[in-house]
């Protein structure tokens, strides 16, 4: 579904764009040469085949003899068998090239994505990135490996046929070649127009999919508003547009194809009329005439194919631009060379040099502005968080509660000022060092496809089974496991969708416990979870917080009340800070927030407790 409108790339040919492909093709030079050679050989035999018929007519039929048929048949059969072998060699080469080339491009994209900063992920829809890694690379690889060589085949075939015809009879050959510009012109005229309408068809199609989606997800609303008929009328307009565009595209093809065939018939007619005269005059053999007829009929398909493939092939320029656009994206946060030197990079960490971490965090005169924002959300902010402190961050939805966490975790860096971890500016340590010491549990917990065991192990890859089970028990995640029929080996489904939100949360807690981080971040869930699970989660959280520096983006009263420090955020700024009672007593914004947001929670609790 095209959720994000793609920008249209310029269509004019740009050599610089194509050059980006060379590094990916270089390892497959041998395969490329293989394909080149066998494609030419294929074209050569294709040109040869009509000549067998010519020989048969001239030698046997006109000569009225069957002497030498066996030898002729042998040669013919040999050509056919050779052709089959060439096809094997070429298609295997192309398939290999397509897959290897595509694999390498995908890998390059994926590796690069692991280095990009959150600022990129925050503004770029997942679908948009995903389509670059998967569809664009697939399309580039397929078109380079097949389409390009099909064009090469068609081109060499057409040239070869011209040469063969010129060798057989110059006069007739020239008559046939005269028709070629007509085909070229027709193709050029129609292809662009057909392409234009096909693009409209595709757009209409994605709109129809969108309408189905909306019709289904909005069914309840449509029913309560009684606007089904109106929705249907809107939908019929979309399908009507789709039909009109499709018929338009089909009409163009319906004119184009018979026209090309007609031009081809002109060539046949000309060959027959002029060739027949030459045969009667004894200037041309009947077999040659038949070869001409075959060539004249057979040359038009490759010419059309050439034009079609050319248009397709040029169009991958846009795909290449999209992929290289992704690869050119620079990470906003990167480690300095001397840091990499000492501590290693993301892919080659030098863990032996890593200092241990206590979790003492200091914001020193920090100012910050989001790269895509236009005002400072933090100015000259200073705060010392001793190791082991629990910090709760409260505020309304969208008030910017994540900012401090993003900075502390170095998902973003301050625009001015410094952030010290254990007294050292974190820019003097590697990102991986810090991240390896952070436990992060999201509001909407994210699990990966795989088993429960694998998901918990994500926290520490070398953990033993016993350690994993211990971690699960520590946060009551084992209650979830017990309900699953295959225990720890039960698959959680794509994105964990076989589990409920509460269950996913418990598993993600276990994952965090296993990592045993010094710094812990929890983005608390707002969604209503059944009371029983809720209690488990509360217990798990208090277990998790023990002895760690933690940031809680908090929604629950009980969590907030127990925090060592509460930061109150409003419109992206920290407006109040202190402990729960202090803040309440101050009767400021926290007090308002409290009475508004938490009173309802308390009421619900009272109802639920009945």
């Amino acid at each position, binding site marked *: 579904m095209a959720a994000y409108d793609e920008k249209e790339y310029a269509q004019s040919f740009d050599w610089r764009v194509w050059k980006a492909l060379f590094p990916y093709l270089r390892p497959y030079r041998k395969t490329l040469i293989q394909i080149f050679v066998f494609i030419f050989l294929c074209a050569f035999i294709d040109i040869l085949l009509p000549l067998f018929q010519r020989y048969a007519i001239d030698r046997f039929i006109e000569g009225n003899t069957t002497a030498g048929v066996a030898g002729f048949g042998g040669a013919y059969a040999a050509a056919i068998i050779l*052709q089959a072998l060439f096809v094997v060699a070429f298609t295997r080469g192309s*398939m290999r090239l397509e897959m290897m080339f595509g694999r390498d491009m995908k890998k390059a994209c994926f590796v690069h994505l692991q280095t990009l900063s959150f600022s990129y992920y925050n503004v770029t829809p997942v679908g948009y990135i995903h389509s670059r890694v*998967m569809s664009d690379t697939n399309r580039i690889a397929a078109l380079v490996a097949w389409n390009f060589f099909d064009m090469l085949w068609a081109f060499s075939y057409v040239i070869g046929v011209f040469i063969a015809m010129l060798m057989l009879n110059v006069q007739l050959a020239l008559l046939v070649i005269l028709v070629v510009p007509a085909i070229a012109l027709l193709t050029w005229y129609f292809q662009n127009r057909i392409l234009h309408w096909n693009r409209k068809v595709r757009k209409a199609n994605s709109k129809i999919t969108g309408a189905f989606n909306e019709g289904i997800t909005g069914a309840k609303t449509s029913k309560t508003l009684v606007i089904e008929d109106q929705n249907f009328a809107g939908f019929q307009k979309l399908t009507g547009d789709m039909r009109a565009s499709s018929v338009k595209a089909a009409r163009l093809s319906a004119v184009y194809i018979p026209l090309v065939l*007609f031009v081809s018939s002109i060539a046949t007619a000309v060959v*027959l009329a002029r060739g027949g005269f030459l045969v009667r005059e004894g200037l041309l053999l009947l077999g040659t005439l038949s070869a001409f007829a075959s060539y004249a009929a057979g040359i038009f398909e490759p010419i059309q194919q050439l034009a079609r493939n050319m248009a397709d092939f040029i169009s991958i320029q846009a795909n290449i631009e999209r992929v290289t656009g992704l690869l050119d994206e620079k990470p906003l946060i990167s480690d300095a060379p001397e840091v990499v030197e000492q501590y290693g990079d993301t*892919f080659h960490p030098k863990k032996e040099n890593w200092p241990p971490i206590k979790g003492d965090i200091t914001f020193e005169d920090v100012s910050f502005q989001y790269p895509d924002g236009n005002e400072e959300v933090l100015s000259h902010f200073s705060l010392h968080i001793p190791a082991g402190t629990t910090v709760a961050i409260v505020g309304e939805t969208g008030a910017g509660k994540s900012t401090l966490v993003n900075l502390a975790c170095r998902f973003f860096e301050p625009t001015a000022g410094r952030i010290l971890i254990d007294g050292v500016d974190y820019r003097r340590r590697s990102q991986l060092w810090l991240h390896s010491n952070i436990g*992060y549990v999201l509001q909407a917990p994210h699990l990966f496809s795989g088993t429960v065991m694998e998901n918990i192990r*994500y926290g520490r890859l070398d953990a033993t089974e016993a350690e994993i089970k211990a971690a699960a028990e520590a946060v009551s995640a084992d209650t979830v496991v017990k309900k699953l029929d295959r225990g720890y080996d039960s698959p959680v489904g794509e994105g964990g969708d076989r589990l409920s939100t509460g269950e996913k949360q418990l598993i993600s807690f276990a994952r965090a416990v296993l990592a045993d981080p010094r710094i812990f971040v929890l983005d608390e869930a707002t969604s209503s979870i059944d009371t029983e699970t809720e209690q488990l989660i509360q217990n798990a959280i208090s277990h998790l917080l023990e002895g760690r520096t933690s940031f809680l983006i908090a929604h629950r009263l009980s969590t907030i009340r127990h925090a060592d420090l509460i930061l109150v955020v409003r419109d992206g700024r920290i407006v109040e800070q202190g402990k729960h009672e202090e803040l309440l007593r101050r009767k400021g914004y926290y007090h308002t927030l409290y009475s508004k947001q938490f009173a309802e929670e308390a009421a619900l609790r*009272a109802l639920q407790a009945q």
Partner: protein
Amino acid sequence: MDPTQTGGGKAALIWRFLRPSLWLFTGALTLSMLNTVFNAATPQIIRTTVDSVIGPEPFALPEPLVSLLRLDSLELTRGLILAAAAILAAAVLSGVCNYLSRIWTAKCSENFVKGLRDGLYDHIQKLPFSWHTAHQTGEIIQRCTSDVDVIRNFVTNQLLEVFRTAFMVVFYLVVMFSMNVKISLVALGFLPIIMGYSFFFYTKIAKRFLAADEAEGELSTTVQENLTGVRVVRAFGREQYEIDRFDVKNQRFTDLWIKLGKLMSAYWASGDLITGLQIMTVLLVGVYETVGGGVTAGEFLAFMSYNAAMVWPVRALGRILSEMSKAGVSIDRVKYILDAKEEPGPAEPVEPPMDRDIVFDHVSFGYEEQGSTVKDISFTIPAGSTFAILGGTGSGKSTLMHLLDRLYDLPEGGGRITIGGVDIRSIPREYLRRNIGMVLQEPFLFSRTIEENIKATRPMASLEEVRAAAATACVDAAMAELSLGYDTMVGERGVTLSGGQKQRVAIARMLMQGAPIMVFDDSLSAVDAETDAQIRAALREHEEGSTVVLISHRVTTLMQADRILVLEDGRVAEEGTHAQLMERGGIYRRIYDIQMNSEDRVLLEEGGDD
């Protein structure tokens, strides 16, 4: 299921949507057959030219044609010009047939698919709400898009192609047999092999395709999960681990396709080999027959043309036949949706005035598999009053409103709901829903402009009316401030509104309905208490005389209602005015105390006990 409504088998479904374009379908088929006939003329013209214009044979043409064209006294030049003209004439005729058959095929295809899509959309909208909750959106959409495309392809490509090819083969063979039995038998002998080989191969390969497709799906999921889980990946420093996982999937995908490629390559090559050998064998047998005097040189040429023209479509036919089995599955999947029963209308519809008392009379109801959610509930909402409902999660408050709007129908023996004494089951749904304005808990806005959203129920309303409704819902100022104002698109392609804004837009949309009964199902939860009060004040002013049902957790909202109902676990716990309930000292009183005295330190300490 009722067989009269489900309407029989797969063929019936095709018939239902193909019938309106039946003449296009048969027309397209007839003309494509005619096209084949005209195409068959060219080899005959060449044959006659070679044998009787250039060669000495007498014309093997019907007597009237011979005398009309004065062929018995034919000099060479006129003969050749006639031949060329005949070829062009056949080309024009076949071109016209080709053009018309393409156009009609396209129109038929588009009509068919439009009918099918419209039918699905309309039907899905009319399906009961319970059907919607029981099915996954993605699954339904896939049936409405991919499966529909498979069916369309089956009807207007595959089916036509099979008919066309079958006709072509039969027609060409008849012509060939009439010229020479021996060569024709040889040609015919190969055809089942060619077709059977393709069919066999594509049936075999389907499984491998599936495996390769699944590998691609897995790879795609891995990328997707890495992108959506980027925060988890970074927070645990698992970049290298992710790359390793990706590599495994990427390699598997690559290997499977290369393996499949080898199979395809073998197929293409051996296919070329078999067809090449067939053409060669026909040529050799033809040579013997011609030399032996069984056929003339011209006939030999005609044979070669017919045979060559037949081989490719037959090869394709094998593939089409093997793929046609897919269509059966798709038809079943689409049929499943179309066979589901629409919400039935009442036997004797009545449209009573709706500004009357609403009575819930011993209402009991449970969703499938969940036991009863609402147990024997009775209460009356007096006409023109404001009626409030308070209850915890799962207490059944939303269920009551679903029942009132007939999103679900009360089963026999589940009590009844009446408006002005009329059982709502005898009121047509459209009439009922049009007269009940309902704002849902999680409002759904359509991806249209804000103006279009608000005037969904009254598309002809002026912008002034829209703004007036928005003003009542306290959202006019916020909307007018957007860069495009009321023309701003909502949803994926446009702005993301906050939860509170969405709720207020939904309220404005409901107000446009001008319904005498209004239901607010916890629809101000995301709006702060002040705005909540403002909206209710504005409502009272504008909508005097309407019956209002409020579902809320907010005591400030509830206390102004004329009557308050407290639900607990599907039963009525308390009912009365604010004063009565306060007096009573039950749940309502307790919640009132918690919410209205939240600054009370003592209560705060109590809240920490959970």
